């Protein structure tokens, strides 16, 4: 296919080390994430998967090494602009409705109204989006949080245990959303323990640095 895709941003990581609580826990991480690619990050508890994703997303410092966006940009601010990070914490405020949470994120991401509707559609939120978020189940909050991926409209998605707490049907939706994102030239990086499957995904295995 020669037609240009919506996204053309990739990520090149060379020899990156990250620290948690002042101790270097992971070093020597190197990989390329091309537009449209998918990469699993696997490793034991405490091996630094979350810290690596947060550092690449520009939310924590990279100790040594380099993380370049392709075609250009390597500063944390440039990475924050191109990468959406969806972590363990859902960032959902329990005191207000799901729709109010979505509206807040949509404003922060500068998302137009139809993108909010697309996000509700993509993760099938319509049935509970108007209920107070405090009344939602863990899985429903998770789906609400995942809708930020759509709202952000960013090329690179960094997901930390995205399928935790969600049911099989929702996991299938997530896979479909990821496939659609990759078809548009977006890339995803997923840290996971469970058997989530993505076509053509490579795997990066990380090990905790010997103490």
């Amino acid at each position, binding site marked *: 296919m020669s037609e240009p895709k919506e996204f053309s941003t990739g990520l090149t990581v060379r020899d990156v080390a990250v620290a948690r609580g002042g101790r270097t826990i992971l070093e020597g991480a190197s990989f390329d994430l091309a537009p449209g690619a998918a990469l699993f990050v696997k490793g034991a508890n405490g091996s630094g998967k979350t810290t690596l994703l947060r550092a690449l997303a520009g939310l924590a*410092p990279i100790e040594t090494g380099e993380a370049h966006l392709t075609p250009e940009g390597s500063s944390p601010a440039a990475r924050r602009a191109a*990468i959406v990070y969806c972590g363990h*914490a859902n*960032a959902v405020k329990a005191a207000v409705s799901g729709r*109010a949470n979505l509206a807040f994120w949509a404003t*922060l991401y500068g998302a137009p109204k139809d993108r909010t509707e697309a996000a509700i559609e993509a993760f099938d939120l319509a049935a509970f989006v108007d209920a107070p978020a405090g009344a939602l189940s863990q899985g429903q909050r998770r789906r609400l949080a995942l809708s930020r991926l759509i709202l952000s409209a960013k090329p690179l998605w960094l997901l930390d245990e995205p399928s935790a707490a969600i049911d099989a049907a929702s996991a299938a939706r997530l896979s479909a959303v990821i496939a659609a994102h990759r078809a548009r030239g977006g890339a995803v990086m997923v840290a996971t323990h469970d058997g989530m499957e993505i076509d053509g995904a490579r795997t990066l295995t990380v090990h905790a640095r010997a103490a």
Partner: protein
Amino acid sequence: MNGFLAIISRDVALGFKAGGGTVQTALFFALTALVFAIAVGPDTALLSRIAAPTLWAAALLSALVSLDRIFQADFEDGSLDVIVETADLLEGRVLAKAIAHWIAACLPLILATPVLALLLSLPAQGYWPLVLSLLVGTPALSFIGAISAAVTLSLRRAGVLIAILTAPLYAPALIFGVAAANAGASGAPNFIPSLLFLGAGTLFSMILAPLAGAAAIRFNMS
């Protein structure tokens, strides 16, 4: 609506929800003033002399107990990640959070002040100077408090620590605020000089808080 206004309106809305803390802070303010009134007893002359300092001290304590709400909840539930990720300028986000704290925590206190001043027999000419001094001075409490809240971000249950760290920094605002309010209450012709010093402190803290707060957040998120 841009991110700055979205953060202010969200934080203020959350403050007024159940568990948001606005009502608790206002009640704490009233309670502190009442405790003073009860402790002093029925000596109206003494009460009317200490009414303005008491209300200023109560406002300061109420601000202190509400500071851990500025960033802590957002840090724990992951919202701060989204706020940082989408920030063109983190300093602006910190300013928005501090302004939201002032609206949700301090403004209700100022609105309640005339009622409590009545209870404490504040002289009639002292109302306007007291309210004015609180309007000019309490934003400094929110701005300075935002720095402390950002510094203690990664510590759990940091409420008391924040209060200990912040109380000394509140001293200038308290001194000039009470000076302005007292001058007004005693019928002194001019309480403006103290008010100007108070305003200068507020403006200074408004510049300092976004810079220091954003630096502290960046440090704490590493």
